[in-house]
């Protein structure tokens, strides 16, 4: 027997684009970023914006509570059976990057329970600027920072800021109060990221999550094309 021998793949291959019955599985998008930047608020807003068009589920990776999952439940952005909380042993970056087994199990359980799904959003608990998702877990990732965390974060870079498929700079409504220069953040982000997109959002005002929702729609269209 050889390592490349093909085995029944119901659970074995994490990044396979097809389900075991041959149909295309749900697109998986990761949302990471520092503590309190607005990841859960973004997930909630995305669910509201997209749930009438797509079949959606959410996996949260909390650090020591079920806070994120409970916020989503309380706000009834999705029925409870579409939300799963993964426990991370104090290390969300391990659970989303180095050892993704518990997250993949949650993804599988959601597909079993409420599938077929179009989209699974995987939120990482707030972590540091180097925390990124494994390609074995997600197909695309969003890094969410906010203007109140300091307008020098795009300049500092790091894997999240530099390589995420979408960088979201959230809480633009707070910029005047915390002295953050949005123009400078946009310029620094472009320097770090080249052609990769950046969205400025305020979830409490204006068009809210729309720029992110539009980007997700684009990803979904490309995924199912």
């Amino acid at each position, binding site marked *: *027997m050889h*390592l490349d*021998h093909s*085995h*029944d793949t*119901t*659970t*074995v*291959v*994490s990044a396979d684009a097809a389900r075991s019955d041959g149909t295309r599985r749900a697109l998986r998008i990761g949302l990471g970023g520092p503590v309190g930047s607005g990841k859960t608020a973004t997930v909630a807003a995305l669910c509201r914006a997209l749930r009438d068009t797509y079949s959606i589920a959410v996996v949260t990776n909390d*650090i*020591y*509570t*079920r806070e994120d999952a409970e916020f989503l439940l309380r706000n009834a952005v999705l029925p409870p059976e579409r939300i799963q909380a993964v*426990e*991370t*042993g*104090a*290390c969300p970056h*391990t*659970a989303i990057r*180095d*050892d*993704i*087994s*518990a997250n*993949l*199990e949650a993804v599988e359980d959601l597909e079993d329970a409420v599938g077929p799904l179009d989209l699974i959003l995987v939120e990482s608990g707030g972590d540091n600027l180097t925390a990124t998702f494994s390609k074995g877990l997600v197909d695309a990732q969003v890094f969410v920072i906010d203007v109140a965390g300091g307008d020098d974060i795009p300049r500092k870079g790091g894997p999240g800021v530099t390589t995420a498929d979408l960088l979201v700079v959230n809480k633009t409504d707070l910029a005047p109060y915390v002295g953050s220069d949005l123009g400078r953040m946009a310029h620094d982000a472009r320097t770090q990221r080249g052609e990769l997109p950046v969205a400025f959002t305020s979830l409490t005002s204006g068009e809210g999550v729309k720029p992110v929702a539009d980007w997700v729609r684009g990803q979904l269209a490309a995924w199912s094309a």
Partner: protein
Amino acid sequence: MDTTSPHGASPGAARAALLVLADGRFPAGGHAHSGGAEAAVKAGRIRDATDLATFCRGRLHTTGLTSAALAAAAAVGADPLVLDEAADARTPSPALRTTARKLGRQLMRAARAAWPCDALDALAAARPRGAHQPVVLGVTAHAAGLGPEDAAHCVAYESVGGPATAVVRLLGLDPFEATAVLARLAPELDQVARRAAEAGRRAPAEGPGALPAASAPLLDITAQAHAAWPVRLFAS
């Protein structure tokens, strides 16, 4: 069951595969579990390296031995489904049964990627929600060309390595002290693994009654309580 393993030269002769399987970075979900250490820390039973050593010694000789023997039995070809039932019988706490199956399912994913073979496929198909982790580990060890002592060592080491890592995170315990605790336990660990392997070798002929059933009631009780905590760092 055949004695040749799909990915090894001769069974029991592989060594590097043991390092891969025993590595704390092997992606099988263990990092989110404290092996009962979080509950013991909260209750004030682990406050320093001395307490950690006592806790680990207790765990090694109870659930450590029992789990290691199950793994050894699976590694010599005892029927994994019979062993899975034997593991249930030796795990009175429903919370710990759930944890063992969850970790078994997670290990299965990594094992099938690392050492794909029919035995793992068959166990995954028979227990899609997960078999007990030590049973999966034993089948994996065989697939990797490892023997019963290797499988027993892996499980015995895990039974103390998990709590030691968790206590470093929970208490900010000096990581050198925590590692020294494990090093001091190494001779006992070897003994436990040998005992487990001996019992495991008898299991195919004598049935699961040949396997030890040592248990730690306090670990069972605190695991039940811990599973209901609203705020915790570790899943178990």
